[in-house]
C-alpha cells in the first residue's frame, strides 16, 4: 500500500528503506460534505479533504507533518477515528540550525522505529540511499506555480491557459532532497538525512524564510502564479510582498481546494496569459474599412451587453439585457436588440468577439478575450486618461491598472465571495424591501451611517436584519452598506495602485451612493461614464477591430 504524505519535508526516502512507495496527497473534491461533521468549517480545504478521505477509509497509511495547526488537528481527528492502519505526525522543527537538525534526526529515528514496529519490516540502508533521485536541471523557461498546496485540478487549469510549461513549486510540489554523501556511516545517516530534508527551499512556516527567494532568482522563471488556500494564513502575506516586488508577471489566486470556482480561476489565468504572452491579436483576420461593422458581447452573470462598432471605432448601437437562461440565448437576444436598434441585418456584422463569464459558451463568435483585458480597453476608449479601473459587476469586483495604451499592467479580483459585489447589494435590497434604484440615492439621506462591520454577506444579512429590527432608519443602513462595499473595493484598488484618472465601470457604477462611498474610502475621485456598463462590450468590439 502506498504511504500518503502531505508535505515536502515528509521522509519519502525513509519509506523506500522499508520497501514502500509514497505519494503526495492530491485530490479535488466536489465539496466537504463528508468532513462537515468532524471538522470546523474554518479550516482550510486541504485539511478538510484529508479528513474526509481518511475517514472514508480511502487512506491506509498516512504520514502528516507538524507543518501547521490544521495538519496537527487533522492528525488528532484521523488518529481518533482509527480509520488509517498507520497514521503518524512527524514533528518538524521551525529552524534548520544544528540543534534543529539533531532534533529532527531524532524524530526521523523515532518514525523509523514506529514504522518498523507497525510493518514488521526491517530498514534497509541501501534501498534508502538508492531512493535519492537526482533532480534534472531546469534549462527551459517556465511559469512557477508557487505558494501553498495546489491540487492537480488547479495545476491543470493553470497549465491549460498557458503555453509555457508550469512547474509546481508549491509547498507539496517543490520537493528536492539532496542525495547523501556515500561516506556517511550508519550512525550519522539520519543526521545527514535530517540536514538534507531541512536544507530544501524553506516553506513559509519556518522561522527563517529568506531562502525562498531562490525561487525568484531562477532566470528561467518567466511568470508566477501564486496560489493561496482559503484559511491558510502562511502564504498570503508572502504573495502580497512578492507581488509588489516581482520582476516577472505575477498572478495571485486563491482556492478552497475544491473544483468550484474554476470559471473565475480560468478567467484570471487567461487574463494573466494575455499579460504574460503579450496582447495577441484576438480579432479574426479581415480587412477593415470605415464601413466595417463588428460586435462585442459582454456575457455577464447579471446582464448581457452588446456594442456594435464601425471601422472608425464609433459606437453604432448598444444593448443591455438581463442574462436569463443560457449565456448563448441571452447573447443572441442582446445582439438582436442592438441590430434592431441600428436597423442592420446580422450578416453585415463582420466579426464578433465575446467576453465575460459566458464568453466561451457563446457559439457564434469569432474569438473571446477575458473581461479584464476588455474592461481595460473599453475604459481606455471612454477616457484615455484612465490609469485605474474599479469594476463592480454582479458576480465579482476587480481593480485593474492600465498603461497609456489601455494595456493591463496589473489587476486584482475579489475571491469567491459575494461581499463587495452587485449581488451583495441586490441581496441587501431584498432584505430591506427596497428597489435597487432606490438604494442608489437612499444613502444620501442618511444623517449618520451605521457601521456594518461584517464583510461576509451571510453575516451582513443577519446584521442588517437586526438593524431593521432595532428600527434603525433605512437611509442610515443603506449608507452603512455602501461603506462596507466601499471599504472592500478601496482595499482592492490600493492593491493595484490608485493613480491619475480612476474610472468606475460595471453595473454598480450606476449606484451613486456606492460611488461616493468608494471615493471617500480611496481618497480619490472616480470618473463615471454613462456608458460605463458597456466597457466590457466596447473592449470586445475593439478587439474585433484589432
Amino acid at each position, binding site marked *: 500500500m502506498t504511504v500518503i504524505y502531505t508535505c515536502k519535508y515528509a521522509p519519502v526516502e525513509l519509506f523506500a528503506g522499508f520497501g514502500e512507495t509514497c505519494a503526495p496527497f492530491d485530490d479535488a473534491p466536489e465539496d466537504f460534505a463528508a468532513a462537515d461533521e468532524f471538522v470546523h468549517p474554518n479550516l482550510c480545504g486541504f485539511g478538510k479533504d484529508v479528513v474526509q478521505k481518511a475517514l472514508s477509509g480511502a487512506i491506509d497509511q498516512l504520514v502528516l507533518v507538524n507543518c501547521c495547526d490544521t495538519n496537527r488537528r487533522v492528525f488528532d481527528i484521523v488518529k481518533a477515528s482509527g480509520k488509517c492502519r498507520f497514521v503518524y505526525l512527524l514533528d518538524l522543527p521551525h529552524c534548520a540550525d544544528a540543534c534543529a537538525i539533531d532534533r529532527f534526526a531524532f524524530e526521523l529515528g523515532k518514525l523509523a522505529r514506529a514504522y518498523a514496529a507497525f510493518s514488521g519490516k526491517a530498514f534497509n540502508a541501501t534501498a534508502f540511499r538508492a531512493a535519492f533521485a537526482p533532480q534534472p536541471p531546469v534549462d527551459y523557461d517556465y511559469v512557477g506555480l508557487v505558494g501553498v498546496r495546489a491540487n492537480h485540478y488547479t495545476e491543470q487549469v493553470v497549465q491549460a491557459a498557458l503555453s509555457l510549461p508550469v512547474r509546481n513549486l508549491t509547498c507539496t510540489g517543490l520537493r528536492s532532497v539532496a542525495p547523501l554523501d556515500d561516506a556517511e556511516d550508519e550512525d550519522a545517516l539520519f543526521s545527514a538525512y535530517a540536514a538534507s530534508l531541512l536544507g530544501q527551499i524553506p516553506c513559509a512556516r519556518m522561522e527563517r524564510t529568506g531562502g525562498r527567494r531562490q525561487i525568484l532568482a531562477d532566470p528561467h522563471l518567466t511568470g508566477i502564479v501564486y496560489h493561496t488556500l482559503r484559511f491558510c494564513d502562511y502564504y498570503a502575506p508572502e504573495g*502580497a510582498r512578492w507581488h509588489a516586488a516581482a520582476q516577472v508577471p505575477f498572478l495571485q489566486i486563491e482556492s478552497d481546494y475544491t473544483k468550484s470556482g474554476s470559471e473565475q480561476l480560468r478567467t484570471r489565468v487567461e487574463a494573466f496569459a494575455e499579460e504574460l504572452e503579450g496582447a495577441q491579436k484576438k480579432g479574426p483576420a479581415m480587412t477593415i474599412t470605415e464601413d466595417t461593422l463588428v460586435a462585442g458581447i459582454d456575457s455577464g452573470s447579471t446582464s448581457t451587453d452588446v456594442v456594435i462598432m464601425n471601422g472608425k471605432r464609433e459606437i453604432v448601437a448598444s444593448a443591455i439585457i438581463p442574462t436569463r437562461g443560457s449565456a448563448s440565448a441571452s447573447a443572441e437576444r442582446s445582439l438582436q436588440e442592438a441590430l434592431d436598434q441600428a436597423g442592420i441585418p446580422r450578416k453585415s456584422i463582420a466579426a464578433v468577439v465575446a467576453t465575460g463569464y459566458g464568453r466561451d459558451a457563446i457559439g457564434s463568435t469569432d474569438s473571446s478575450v477575458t473581461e479584464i483585458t476588455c474592461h481595460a480597453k473599453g475604459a481606455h476608449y471612454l477616457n484615455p486618461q484612465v490609469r485605474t479601473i474599479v469594476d463592480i459587476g454582479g458576480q465579482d469586483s476587480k481593480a485593474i491598472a492600465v498603461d497609456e495604451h489601455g494595456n493591463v499592467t496589473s489587476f486584482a479580483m475579489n475571491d469567491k465571495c459575494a461581499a463587495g459585489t452587485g449581488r451583495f447589494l441586490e441581496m441587501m435590497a431584498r432584505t430591506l424591501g427596497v428597489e435597487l434604484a432606490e438604494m442608489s440615492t437612499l444613502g444620501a439621506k442618511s444623517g449618520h451611517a451605521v457601521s456594518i*462591520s461584517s464583510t461576509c454577506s451571510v453575516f451582513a444579512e443577519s446584521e442588517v436584519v437586526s438593524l431593521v429590527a432595532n428600527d434603525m432608519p433605512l437611509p442610515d443602513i443603506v449608507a452603512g452598506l455602501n461603506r462596507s462595499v466601499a471599504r472592500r473595493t478601496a482595499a482592492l484598488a490600493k492593491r493595484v495602485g490608485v493613480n491619475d484618472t480612476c474610472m468606475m465601470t460595471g453595473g454598480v457604477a450606476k449606484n451613486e451612493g456606492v460611488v461616493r462611498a468608494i471615493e471617500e474610502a480611496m481618497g480619490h475621485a472616480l470618473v463615471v461614464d454613462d456608458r460605463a456598463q458597456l466597457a466590457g462590450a466596447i473592449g470586445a468590439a475593439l478587439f474585433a477591430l484589432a
Partner: protein
Amino acid sequence: MNVVSLFGRLVGEQAATNPEGARKILLAGYAAQQAKLSVAPNPRLPKSRQRIAVDTMKLVRNALDHPETAAATSLFTPTEFLHTAGVTPYSVEVISAFLAGTQCEQYWLRDAEQAGFPETLCSYHRTFLGALESGILPQPKSIVYTNIACDGNMVTFPHAEEAFNVPAFFIDVPWEHSEDSVAFVADRLRQLPEFVGDVHGTAPTDDDLSRCLVREQRCAADYGHYLDMQPTRYLANDMTSEMYAMVALRVMLGSELSESFARRLAAEIDAAPEADGLRLVWMHVIPNMLPPIVSALSFNDRAYIAATDIIVDGLATPIDPAKPYETLARRMVYSAYNGSTDLRIERALDLCRRTHADGVVYFAHWGCKMTLGAAHLAKTAIEDAGYPCLVLDGDGCDRVNTSEGQVATRLNAFLELLEARRAEQEA
C-alpha cells in the same frame, strides 16, 4: 456614538497621516483611563480585580511609552526571563486587546489586510500587524517569542522582527509531550539570559529565576485555593477582569503584581458570599468585548466562569525553583495548548471536577485553527465525561466576525439547558 468609539476614531484617523501623534493621543487616553481606574474603580469589583485593572493599564502604557526597555512577546513566552531583568513584556495579544477595547481595531485590521495578511488569520495577530504597518506601535528593544500556542506567532513575529528591525529570540517548542522535548527547550532557554543581557544590558541570573519561581509557587497555591472555593462561593467578576487575570497569571507570572493578585483573590474568595450559580469552565481566549457574552456572564451570581483553561494552563505543571530552566521548559512543552488535543481535554475535565462545573464553553475564536480543529473532538470527549459543552463561534477581537444575535441565542440557550439539567438533578 459613545466616547470610546469617538476616541478610537480619532486615533485611527490620525494614524493615517501622523502615527506618532496618534500614539500620543492613544497614550494620553490610556493615562486618563488609568487615573479613572485608580480614583474611581468599579465599586462592584473586589479589590484584587480593581487593582489588576490599574496594573494592566500601567503595563500596556509602560510598554508603549518606554519601548526601549520592552521586549515584544507572545502569550506563551516565559516572561520570567524579562521582568526579572527589568524588561517590560510588550505583549502582542494584550496590546491588540487594548486596541480593540479602544475601538480602533478596524483601522489596523484594514491596514493588515492591505499588507496582504489574510482576514482568516487570528484577529489579535492581525490587529497587531496592522498597527505595526500603520507606524503607531513603537519599536521594542527586542522580541522573544515561541511557536505555541498557534500558527499566528510564526506569521507575526518573524514579520515583526523584520519590520521593527530588532534582535529576536525564538523558542521552538516540539509538538510531543515528552521529557526529550523538555530537555530540548531547556537547552534553548539556557541561552536566553545571555540574549537578554546583550540586548537589554541586564541578564537575569539563575537566582533571580529561582526567586521568581518561589513566588510562582505561592501564586499557584493561592490561585489553586481560589479555584477550590468555586463550588460554594462567587467573587464578583466580569469578562474584562477575567482577561486581566490572564495578564497577571500568564504575561506577568512570577512578578510581584502576579503574586499579590493571587494572594488578594485567595483572601477575598474566603469572604465572598455563598453562591450556587451555573459554573462554567471557559476554554480559550476571553472575548471581553462581545456584548452578549459580557451581559450574560458579568456580575452574575447565577451564571459565571469558574475557571478559564488558558489562565490555569500557566500553573498546571510542577514548579521547582532549583531547576528554573526545566520548570519553564516543561510548562511550555506540557502546555494544554501544545501537542495533541488529548491533554487540552484532560486539563479541561480536571477543571470541571475541581470547580464542580455545570458545563464547558469552548470558545472557537475565528482564525485560531488549533482550537477550531479540535472543537469536535473536545466537545465529544467532554460530553462523554458528563459535562455539556457549547462550541461557541465568535471573535474576541474583530467585531466583524461575530454575529451578536447568534452568540446571544446560543449562549443563553446553553445556560437554559444547564439550568434545566440542574433542576432535573435536584428533583
